[in-house]
């Protein structure tokens, strides 16, 4: 199988359908599969309970993050270092991937290469079948969501169980995750109690009390941990020099998955690679502080290939772990790598600091992004992974306020990439009426603004329109696109008596000053 050279460019730059399982779009007639951020978010934003839950959670985590980041005197240096490590690795990805493969193989593991989601799913299913298991336990993983693994396993008779508490809540409720780190952030404790009591816990036993809820989940999962023979994980970091995989988590359920079953399968995006263990230190300082606002996360599991011996709980003896397999996934990443501006997004370590500070995410929640990857990072990653035609809307899901860039531990310039993606989107607009109208208008406005004489005329016209039409437009403007979006909640500005340039020319600046 080809590996780093694998390309997923379809004809005319289109992207094969096989890569679009990360989309969570609703049915929209012929355009099924396309993300409609505006209509979805306009609906989601009316869910006041969801907004309250998310605002409460992100405000708390934001404050915690700020506190622990301020304790690190060389935080900015660390960010720069992390960004350099990632850029260097991405520029030499082929070399490091081969080094990683050699080291995994040497340690008794097996490396598989998956060009796209479909291939990764097939390999994973095949590996589970080989082990003879009919169920698997899962470590929290974004990439398995990206490839739609759970649904695929279920369709093929394998029952997956999420072991991360929040992922379990989503799985039991049939919810889609709405946050990278805290997938059930849209739910509060009362709702979670109801979900548990409706599924495995006894009715009336949990009282919306977090310790009781956690205890119930613990008991429910413990049995699965002890019985399962196959675990599936993602990976936070791949270390090329040793062939190691690192998982960073809070609950210890990941550690259970990685140590109890005899077969472990990891599915990891090729961009998760870093060269050395020393590099890992940089990221292990940045990641927990950025994501959960902790100085250090409770559990970091690092392993290499197939560990020599395992204690199996039932027999209370040690036994060789049967297999370790790792599937390295491209699924559009090499194409992203070819975009000079957009490739920065591949440095992402999925900390979700950008979600927690985003004023848009805080109001609309993760589901509005209609993608496995929500928030600012989702807005730059999704359009690049599935293409502008399906996800171009997301590039506009931002005021470009820059809060995301400021907190990003690997310095991804998210506003810059959003602007870049908007530019790609406007180039593709020629195929729709509204797109052409906008394009045409911006063309005309651009010509006017680029010419001082035309600008003088236009500036005077705007003033006149506001003066004579303003009061009327404030009333009827809500029926007039595109100003309806403004006038529904805001008045138009009042017209001045003179423009600044005219007053300056006439020497009447003082007449403009407020009394």
């Amino acid at each position, binding site marked *: 199988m080809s590996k780093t050279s694998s390309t997923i460019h379809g004809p005319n730059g289109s992207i094969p359908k096989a890569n679009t399982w990360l989309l969570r779009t609703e049915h929209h007639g012929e355009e099924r599969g396309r993300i409609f951020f*505006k209509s979805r*978010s*306009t609906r989601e934003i009316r869910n006041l309970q969801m907004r309250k839950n998310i605002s409460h959670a992100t405000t708390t985590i934001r404050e915690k993050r700020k506190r622990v980041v301020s304790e690190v005197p060389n935080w900015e240096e660390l960010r720069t270092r992390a960004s350099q490590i990632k850029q260097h690795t991405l520029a030499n990805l082929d070399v490091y991937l081969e080094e990683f493969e050699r080291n995994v193989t040497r340690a008794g593991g097996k490396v598989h290469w998956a060009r796209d989601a479909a291939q990764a799913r097939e390999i994973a299913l095949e590996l589970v079948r080989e082990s003879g298991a009919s169920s698997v336990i899962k470590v929290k993983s974004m990439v398995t969501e990206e490839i739609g693994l759970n649904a695929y396993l279920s369709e093929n008779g394998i029952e997956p169980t999420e072991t991360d508490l929040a992922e379990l809540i989503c799985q039991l409720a049939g919810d889609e995750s709405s946050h990278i780190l805290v997938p059930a952030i849209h739910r509060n404790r009362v709702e979670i109690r109801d979900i548990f009591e409706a599924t495995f816990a006894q009715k009336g036993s949990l009282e919306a009390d977090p310790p009781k809820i956690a205890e119930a989940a613990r008991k429910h999962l413990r049995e699965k941990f002890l019985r399962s023979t196959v675990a599936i994980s993602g990976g936070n970091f791949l270390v090329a020099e040793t062939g190691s995989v690192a998982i960073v988590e809070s609950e210890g359920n990941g550690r259970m998955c990685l140590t109890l079953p005899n077969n472990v399968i990891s599915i990891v995006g090729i961009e998760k690679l870093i060269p050395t263990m020393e590099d890992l230190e940089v990221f292990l300082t940045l990641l927990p502080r950025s994501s959960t606002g902790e100085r250090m996360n409770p559990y970091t599991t690092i392993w290499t290939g197939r560990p020599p011996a395992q204690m199996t709980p039932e027999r209370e003896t040690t036994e060789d772990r049967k297999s370790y397999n790792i599937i390295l996934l491209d699924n559009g990443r090499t194409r992203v790598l070819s975009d000079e501006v957009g490739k920065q997004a591949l440095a992402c370590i999925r900390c979700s600091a950008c979600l927690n500070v985003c004023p848009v995410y805080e109001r609309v929640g993760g589901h509005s992004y209609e993608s496995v990857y929500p928030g600012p990072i989702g807005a730059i990653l999704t359009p690049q992974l599935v293409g502008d035609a399906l996800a171009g809307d997301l590039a506009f*899901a931002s005021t*470009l306020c820059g809060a995301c860039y400021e907190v990003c531990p690997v310095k991804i310039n998210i506003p810059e990439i959003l602007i870049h993606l908007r530019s790609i989107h406007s180039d593709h607009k020629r195929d729709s009426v509204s797109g052409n109208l906008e394009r045409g208008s911006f063309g005309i406005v651009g010509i006017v603004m680029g010419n001082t004489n035309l600008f003088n005329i236009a500036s005077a016209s705007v003033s006149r329109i506001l003066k004579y039409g303003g009061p009327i437009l404030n009333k009827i403007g809500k029926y007039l696109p595109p100003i309806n979006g403004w006038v529904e909640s805001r008045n138009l500005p009042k017209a*001045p008596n003179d423009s*600044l340039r005219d007053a300056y020319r006439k020497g009447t600046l003082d007449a403009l000053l407020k009394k």
Partner: protein
Amino acid sequence: MKVAIFPSCIVDTIFPEAGAAAIRLLERLGVDVDFPLEQTCCGQMHLNTGYETRARKLAAKHLSSFSQYDWVIGISTSCTTTVREFYPQLLGATSAEVGGSGKFLELSEFLLDVLGVTELEGTFAKKVTFHTSCHSLRGIHLGDRPQRLLSMLEGIELIPLPKSDSCCGFGGTFSIKNSAISTVMMEEKLANVYWTGAEVLTAADSSCLMNLSGGIQAAKKQLTVMHYAEILEIATRQSQKKLLNHSGGR
């Protein structure tokens, strides 16, 4: 030292009072300031909406309008951010090569860092709250410069705005393209503004103020909205002598 003002197309057309105030204030500080009439728009709207080619043309024209000046004083943080932070990338060259986008300063940077203003003679006996625009914070990193200037005035009561670092929801064409979200952000920002009990809402960016004053008027609330340059100008209007209490020159 040749100094020009770059008020932004929004100020020029819709809020000329802010531009006039900045010019008068600079004159009172002994600065001879020109308003080059060649200037139109810096191209921010085109750039941010995805019309890069058009933005590039506007950027080139914008720079050439100011080619003969040593300093270009902006009173719109998002426009100054566009020139200083985005032009080098947009025009594909370092800032020196594109005609020195580094000479574009925001008013408070010019007053504090170049002129070295340490005191202002003037009174503004009102409760004021300051909205820190995203671009002032994270674009050109103004820090608290505008507030430092305001606090030089007698009688002013600056009331901190809760969550002042969060966006007001304007975002240029975002306010129209995603108006529902923009509205919620604007309303939450205004709830914090009302909570301060301030009589005057101010900022270093007329775009944010256009958004917020639009919301205030639609909600029929009584609150004065003005650019901080206007406050500085009004407060120092009574000073008969030139306000030369600064070290002068960098």
